[in-house]
């Protein structure tokens, strides 16, 4: 039996725009979850404490210091194998077909409504799959997301 996380989820936010990071943090908390860490670049993710146990990470693709969210995804998957990685990007076309190991994407610009619907759907898929809510238009699931349910 797979171990499934419980709400509130521990969320990591990897975003180089301070405003967006603040905004996502606020919405994550409005949705009843907990932000346990923030990073703006690949090396900041590498320097995060190993004691963090993120259930979910929102990862921008174009990050500070020219680093890429795709590489961040690989690092997260290596450090915390159980973490669900959701890209948040204005350029979803840059994500390879296999989502580079990620579980889905929320295209920017996101709306509060869109982000919260997506978060609810992700929470259902992560904590108590399969999700009961229909998949919102604001979230594109990767094959790896449905694979979590089995």
């Amino acid at each position, binding site marked *: 039996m797979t171990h499934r996380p419980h709400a509130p989820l521990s969320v990591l936010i990897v975003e180089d*725009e301070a*405003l*967006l990071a*603040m*905004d996502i943090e*606020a*919405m994550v908390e409005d949705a009843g979850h907990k932000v346990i860490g923030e990073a703006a670049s690949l090396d900041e993710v590498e320097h995060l404490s190993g004691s963090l146990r993120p259930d979910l990470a929102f990862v921008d693709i174009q990050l500070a210091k020219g680093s890429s969210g795709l590489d961040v995804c690989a690092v997260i998957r290596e450090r915390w194998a159980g973490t669900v990685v959701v890209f948040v990007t*204005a*350029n*979803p*076309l840059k994500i390879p077909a296999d989502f580079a190991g990620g579980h889905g994407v929320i*295209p*920017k*610009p*996101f*709306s*509060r*409504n*869109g982000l*919260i*619907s997506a978060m*609810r759907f992700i929470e259902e898929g992560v904590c108590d799959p399969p999700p009961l*809510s*229909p998949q*919102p*238009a*604001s979230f594109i699931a990767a094959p790896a997301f449905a694979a979590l349910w089995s």
Partner: protein
Amino acid sequence: MSARLHGDVMNQRDDWHLTEALDYEHGRADPFAAAVRATRMPMVITDPSDPDNPIVFCNEAFQKLTGYDRNEIIGRNCRFLQGPETNQDDVSRVRTAIEAQTDIAIDLLNYRKDGSTFWNALYLSPVRNDDGDVVFFFASQLDVSNRVQAQTMIAEQKTAVEREVEARTADLKAALEAKTLLLHEVDHRVKNNLTMIGSLLRLQARSIADPAITSKLETMLERVDALATVHRRLYQSDDITRFDVGAFAENLVADVVGASGRTDILIATEIARIEVPSSKAAALGLILNEITTNAIKHAFIDGKAGTITIRAGVDESDAVVEISDDGHGLSTQQAKPDGMGKTLIARLARQVNADVRWSDAAPGARVTVSFPVTE
């Protein structure tokens, strides 16, 4: 041969020898033979019953074409006209036709006595006797060097033009790629800016204690969100000049209901594709946003459960989007948007020539937005 020619009984095979006599009786005996001798068309006759199918007759025109004299020609197989550049595949096609006793028309590169070449449009056919046996082969030649040269020239010009077209296409492709890249860059920045505007409004709304102001800011935010959704849908589609209003309405209602956390509000959809030019997308998107957010806020107040139904389709020349609910209906004070929302709907509807109508759906309310799609 001479025995046959002067034999008492001349068989059919030997008739052609009569033309020899015409050397000095030009045109006076057999008129057909005379014609063959005198025509401008080079001709030969070969005899397959002799070893190696030699030429047994050639006319003046053939001698003139090839530069050989009759005595250099008679008794030889036609292959003496071939040379190093002659296509051997074509030669073997001729051989096959002779073996199969069928006729063949083919262009061959042949050589004159002086070594110069010419394109020979060869037509070769078997001549049969009454029993159907092949007794001769008849071959006519035609110097088609000019035609072949013209064809070669055309082929070369065609290749040159194709190369030019290819080069131009490559240039155009490169230009298009540069433009696409630029478009993606602009799209990326627009999205980032829309996201930042949304974030700023959301952050501001959180820091204000006055619920009236917060509520107004949130309404503004919903409008920015609606514009962001319009932009996202446009740039995710294959054709950024067209906008699917039906899919947008479905998307919008799902987002708004989803975010409200109201699991007791169901969504029913009956959506057909409605394409409008992208120039109308923002206005129609905002109109639908005002209607939808209003319906969700006011139709199901006090925890009333219900269903929001979205229908979209094209009826003759008009597109119709209908958003109905089975909530409190038009009797409630806030059934219709007021203030800024009302103004927005009125002005934007005029801009895109849309008609927005509220009607009683008993229970609940129905809003019908219709607009021409053929503009």
